[in-house]
């Protein structure tokens, strides 16, 4: 205590340190310096993000993380996956714990405008559905009046159910869990008559039930759930990079560029393909990457359609039809702006 100056200096030092966090450097620079991309994913949702039997993360959301890593590092393995619950996800992104949230997250206005998040697009067009036991013989959601419904906290699902039953003046008993596994386990043990989440999630959870064939997904969908990746607001370069990774992923499918033929396509005469793969133009520079950024995405993870079929589509255990997740020209909703 002989040097009050020292104490004051250290206090001032702390204040300066605290202030230093005001200034953020660019996310891309941070990611490059760190040498890996930190990607927030679901703790375990078959088809979207779940560790396989070798401990490798797989799924559509996981593939998107790998696509971004491929664009930046030309290496799909330079991703550190951070499993997050529905409750933790936004805080993890805001606090900088992850660079990118690719975790079946619904794009809503309040999330996009009030929570410091920026959604870059849609990877999966979904809607909320209900899983019920076949023996109940139900045809529509309204017939669930008076029933108990299991769901997960911190989701748009919780709000949609409340809206649905309130506007129809029907009653129901919500049973809300923090983790999906517990909600599904409780449904499985008969605590609830129905389990609700996005339809994709219902198919993913159904294959884990004791007797999948005894459970059906009601055909009625009660909400719009456009699921997509999100980043922090305020770093336009990073927003663009992640957004155009998604667009390149979709455009590659539209142009018929696949993981298998991408090297042959390098010599293609189609100017759209040439701009996508970087053999023509200087499109990578605008997002701080080399011109072969999209080539790396397709070479390492394939195009969107390939990833879809592999993880959730007919080539997977989930067996989900593509329907509205087809490209626009095939009658679906996916429509990516052109690279030019």
């Amino acid at each position: 205590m002989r040097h009050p100056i020292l104490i004051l200096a250290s206090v001032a030092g702390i204040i300066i340190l605290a202030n230093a966090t005001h200034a953020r450097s660019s996310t891309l620079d941070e990611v490059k310096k760190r040498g890996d991309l930190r990607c927030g994913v679901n703790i375990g949702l078959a088809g979207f993000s779940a560790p396989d039997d070798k401990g490798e993360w797989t799924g559509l959301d996981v593939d998107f993380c790998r696509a971004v890593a491929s664009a930046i590092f030309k290496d799909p393995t330079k991703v550190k996956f951070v499993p997050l619950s529905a409750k933790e996800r936004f805080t993890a992104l805001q606090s900088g714990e992850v660079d990118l949230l690719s975790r079946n997250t619904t794009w809503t206005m309040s999330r996009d405008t009030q929570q410091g998040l920026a959604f870059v697009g849609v990877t999966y067009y979904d809607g909320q559905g209900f899983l019920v036991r076949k023996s109940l013989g139900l045809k529509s959601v309204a017939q669930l009046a008076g029933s108990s419904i299991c769901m997960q906290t911190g989701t748009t699902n919780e709000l949609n159910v409340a809206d649905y039953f309130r506007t129809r003046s029907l009653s129901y008993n919500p049973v809300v869990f923090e983790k999906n596994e517990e909600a599904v386990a409780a449904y499985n043990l008969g605590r609830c008559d129905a389990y609700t989440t996005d339809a994709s999630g219902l198919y993913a959870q159904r294959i884990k039930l004791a007797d999948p064939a005894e459970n059906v997904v009601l055909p009625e969908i009660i909400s719009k759930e456009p699921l997509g990746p999100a980043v922090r607001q305020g770093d336009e370069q990073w927003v663009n990079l992640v957004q155009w990774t998604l667009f390149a992923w979709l455009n590659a499918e539209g142009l018929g560029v696949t993981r298998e033929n991408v090297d042959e396509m390098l010599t293609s005469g189609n100017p759209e393909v040439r701009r996508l793969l970087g053999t023509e133009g200087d499109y990578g520079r605008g997002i701080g990457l080399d011109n072969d950024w999209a080539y790396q995405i397709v070479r390492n993870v394939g195009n969107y359609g390939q990833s879809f079929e592999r993880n959730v589509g007919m080539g997977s255990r989930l067996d989900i039809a593509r329907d509205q997740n087809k490209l626009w020209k095939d009658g679906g909703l996916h429509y990516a702006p052109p690279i030019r």
Partner: protein
Amino acid sequence: MASARTGPPRQTQSFAWLYDPRTRGIILQIALLVGVAAFFIEIALNTAANLKAQNIATGFGFLDRTAGFDISQTLIPYKSTSTYGQVFWVGLANTLLVAAIGIVLATMLGFTVGLARLSSNWLVARLATVYVEIVRNVPLLLQLLAWYFTLLIALPLPEAALQLPLGIGVTNRGLYLPAPVWQQGLGAVLIALLVGIAVSVAIGKWAKRKRLATGAQVSAFWFCFVAIVLPPLLVFLAYGAPLSFDYPKPGRFNLEGGIVLLPELIALLLGLTLYTAAFIAEIVRSGIEAVPRGQKEAAAALGLRPWQVQRLVVIPQAMRVIIPPLTNQYLNLTKNSSLAVAIGYPDLVSVFAGTVLNQTNQAVEVILITMGVYLAISLLTALLMNWFNARMALVER
């Protein structure tokens, strides 16, 4: 510092105060205080600035916005159109309910097991030991999950509801009790009951005064019993039994009507009670063992019966040792109730620090409020127990 006192005797007058250890001490303390205050203010301002820079909403205005979700157990009126502020009160009420019931049950069970540990009956003492050692050495979260899923598996589905006497229904969706329906005249019965209780308290005081004055044992038990039971019964019959019940009846999916105790609540209470009671049992045992053997022997020598020895001599002295750590256990139970979120019980952490935080994403505000509430509950409990402790303290005469 010592050098200041023995240093050169005559400094220039204007700087002499600098070498006064007392003044220096005060200056240093003020500087430190200002530094610490500046540090925390800076953190607050920095947080606010960063949140603003990231375009994250701040402030407490969200408490007035519509919540939009439903809650499975609400002790106070709540609809999905209520505000986030109302969600807070619903969650708080649910937390307090579990804490209050849990504390009462854990105390009763804890004292019983604590006494059983000291029992001269070999089997009883061993069983109590086994219970204590198993329960307090397994993580509470696992116990809660185990209880919850055991209940869901063990109890019947609603279509096969177990119908008990008195209209009680048991399913794995909850324990359904008949709900009393308030009718004209029931208020008078309640008043009669209160009068009866007041009369018996007076009788008890009179009996104690008489015993202290004359030494004669006056048994007031039957007087009190009659005073409490008879007047309400008469009023009840005079009004023509003004009480009916809303019995739970099978509905399309669940039993409907009556009062429902959710399996989440039952599992949480089971887990918290059994876990905390194991610790309380050890506290009770140590408290009783802390009373010197001579006290019991002296009491026995005076001719007191064994239960009188326990009640009049041992327990009052043991309580002095028991109460402070018991307070700790009460606080632990209250704080542990926040594990409710794992099994779907809508406590404060689950609905407010969980759902509301997620909907509004105002983590700083929500967590601050939640921490403040737990702090307040804990401080209140501690205050109450300190007061109780002061009352129980040995008065030296």
